[in-house]
């Protein structure tokens, strides 16, 4: 057993867990953050993606104790209060989800993808960068559409903010 201290969605949390406890299980079972899912055993499906220290990683392939000291954002922490994150809003507007199981991981991957491509995204890039997220419902068509739309919205938002600042 080890002590695990994390900052999760802006809150400092700590708990005790077996060293073999995966981060995803710590989030789900110790912290009750069940939005992060487990869909495979081989680190491929991406249903478990969360942000650890600003990077989108697979929480099923990381021990909780390994993450101790890190800052984590999960799907539950993405929205700004009642206001949806632009990626969340785009997934809804463009019907980028059906059963919802892969959705949290998709959204966390997408926000990271958009952040990594400030120059903007095209369809081919989005499809390539979704390599590590599997969806069985949507055929990805509307997920791709949603990510492209969110990317544009966020770029406009950033420009708008820059203008305001100027």
């Amino acid at each position, binding site marked *: 057993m080890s002590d695990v201290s994390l900052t999760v969605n802006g809150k400092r949390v700590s708990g005790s867990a*077996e060293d*073999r406890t995966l981060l995803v299980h710590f989030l*789900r079972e110790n912290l009750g*953050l*069940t*939005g*992060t*899912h*487990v*869909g*495979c*055993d*081989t680190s*491929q*499906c991406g*249903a478990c993606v969360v942000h650890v220290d600003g990077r989108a990683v697979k929480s099923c392939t990381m021990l909780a104790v390994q993450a101790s000291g890190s800052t984590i954002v*999960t*799907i*539950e922490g*993405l*929205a700004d209060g009642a206001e*949806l994150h632009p990626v*969340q809003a785009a*997934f*809804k*507007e463009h*019907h980028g*989800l*059906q*059963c*919802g*199981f*892969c*959705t*949290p991981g998709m*959204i966390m991957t997408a926000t990271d993808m958009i952040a990594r491509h400030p120059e903007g995204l095209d*369809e081919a890039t*989005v*499809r*390539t960068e*979704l*390599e590590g*997220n*599997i*969806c*069985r*419902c*949507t*055929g*990805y*068509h*509307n*997920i*791709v*559409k949603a990510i492209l739309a969110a990317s544009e919205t966020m770029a406009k938002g950033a420009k708008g903010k820059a203008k305001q600042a100027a």
Partner: protein
Amino acid sequence: MGIEGVGARVARKEDKRFITGGGRYVDDMVVPGMKHAVFVRSPHAHAQIKKIDVKKAQGMPGVVGVLTGKELKADGIGNLICGWMIHSKDGTPMKMGAWSPLAVDKVRYVGDAVVIVVADTKGQARDAAEAVEITYKELKAVVDATKAIQPGAPQIHAESDNNLIFDWEIGDAKATDAAIKSAAHVTRMKIVNNRLVPNAMEPRAALGHYDKAEDHYTCWTTSQNPHVARLVMSAFYNVAPENKLRVIAPDVGGGFGSKIYIYPEEIVCLWASKRTGVPVKWVADRTESFLADAHGRDHVSMVEMAFDKDNRITGLKVDTIANIGAYMSLFSSCVPTYLYATLLSGQYNIPAIHANVRTVYTNTAPVDAYRGAGRPEATYLLERTMETAARELGVSPAELRRKNFITSFPHQTPVIMNYDAGDYNASLDAAMKAADYAGFTKRKADAAKRGKLRGIGMSCYIEACGIAPSAAVGSLGAGVGLWESAEVRVNAVGTIEVLTGSHSHGQGHETTFAQLVNQRFGVPIDSVSIVHGDTDKVQMGMGTYGSRSGAVGMSAIAKALDKVEAKAKKIAAHLLEADEGDIVIENGEVKVAGTDKSLPWFQVALAAYTAHNLPAGMEPGLKETAFYDPANFTFPAGCYISEVEIDPETGVTDIIQFVAADDFGNIINPMIVEGQVHGGIAQGIGQALLEGAHYDGNGQLLTASYMDYTMPRAGDLPSFKVSTSNTPCPSNPLGIKGCGEAGAIGSPPAIINAITDALGIVEIAMPASPATVWAAIRAKKH
């Protein structure tokens, strides 16, 4: 159509919880005192169980129970059943072997559940599961259905000689043989439909809770049809009487058929909860899902299609061997029979059809309905054969299809189905236009200049959905009726709850069903709640599969709405002192037509509950129930075209474009319908290019994780061009045909027809992986 009514592209109500992490799936459920279960599964495809020693496991840290099939049997838990009786052509009933939820004497596939271990944590349960000692005597295994019916093959169940479950036929053998004999041309093919693993992203899970004080069970399960689960667990498996068993299917992360069936795990978790005195939760690992979820497809067929000198089809003869796996799953018998062979007429006028189907046990996971269920197999067989025939006859694939299209309705096929409406030329025209079919020759030449091989392929599919008239399926052997129920509860303030027996696991019912209510009463969809998935809330229902939620589930709601509307109008007429026939309900107002007299909707509802001033003799309240039993199947149909480009150096197939033109009848929410088509197409392309379950000769599943089973990823697929046309379905009040399975049904032959066109060959196996395509190119060269 209002902004939230029928036909509107309304964003989904349910999305809010899913995009914020608030979905509630079975694995998210926590019950005080809950423990975790791991199943010990057979590592052998076929073996006798000589001895099970659980002593060591029982003593491991955290373990609260280690239970075997012997104890399960002692407690009277029954065997799993197949709910559809098929008789062989000699009149004998199908020969079904026993399937115990925990294997007792023998294991029959890798993954067969043998022991359940319950412990404080899943890790401890797994540790203890490894300590269970089972002595097996290995037996020879057989995985290929064509080999399993050969003399001398390993006998899997004592009940079925040579593993043959039934030898069934449909249609007119004599007339078909005569047509083939006198044909101007006969196209002959061997058609293999590859085995698939459904792979809903949420693995199956079950949480069983026995409440000793109440002598009552609750089961949270990943089910597409919780009521059927309760019925079957109660009536056949003796888990508990229905009034003592509540089944809840909360948010369910995709099903595609694989979550229709009642599997051993939920039965065993419920039973183990009583045995151990604690709530027991089991969640499948992905590899467990690969091993123990029902698989799909796995047919081998020989087909002969006869043509007259004008290229009109005169007969179709099909001989199919269907792999059922090691046990007969719940609907396994109807998939390769009444969901398959009854669709062999396709979109075509075929005067004589005969199909013979043999279903066979093998040492593989049980095979049952997977998105499309029988209809993809029929479509693949027909549309591959049509394509080959067109090439042999030297006519264009479109022309051959047009010549043979059914154009007047209703149309009675020789294989039971009575098509009620359709316009197959319209879909074909729309698809060819969207694909710029005419420009293909130039595109092919351009590709050739770049060293690439281009091909184009089409597929004109039909399916039977909205299953189905209860009396009809009953006469064909179904153990249940296939109606649906609905209850519409108008609250005193005018908000509405709709209780439905349909189950949403991605389909968006919370939105589309509310749109139907909005259309009727003008109540905002936010004021309409759809309640489903809980046997304590919804009295009875048949669930969601076979693209039936719209055609059957919503029709039931429409019927209940009729009753609510009639009563509301009576109340309004009374209050407004008008004639009942003059009352109209529009935009949330109840009006007297042609006057300015009106009441807001909520006031009518309130009046129903205050009951101060109701028509004489009227009961208070505004709540109605309806059961809807469809008059016929529905017949969605369409045309899919794919254009591919192949890199001859690597065998890689790029899908340049994929066009779908579907006729789903009336549509409630086009955005959701498109989403259903996209997902179906992705699964169909998956079958054609990527996916295949592969057992080795010893019955080991070689594709038991995403490391070896190729799931379609975003980069494997293009964006799709989809459109719909509409011949409303005359068989249900809403004119809906259903859209859930079309994509998976129509797309595989379109892809394979395009690949064989590009390569100039007749056949290629699915999945047409780069390695397979490259080998085909090489074989052609030599």
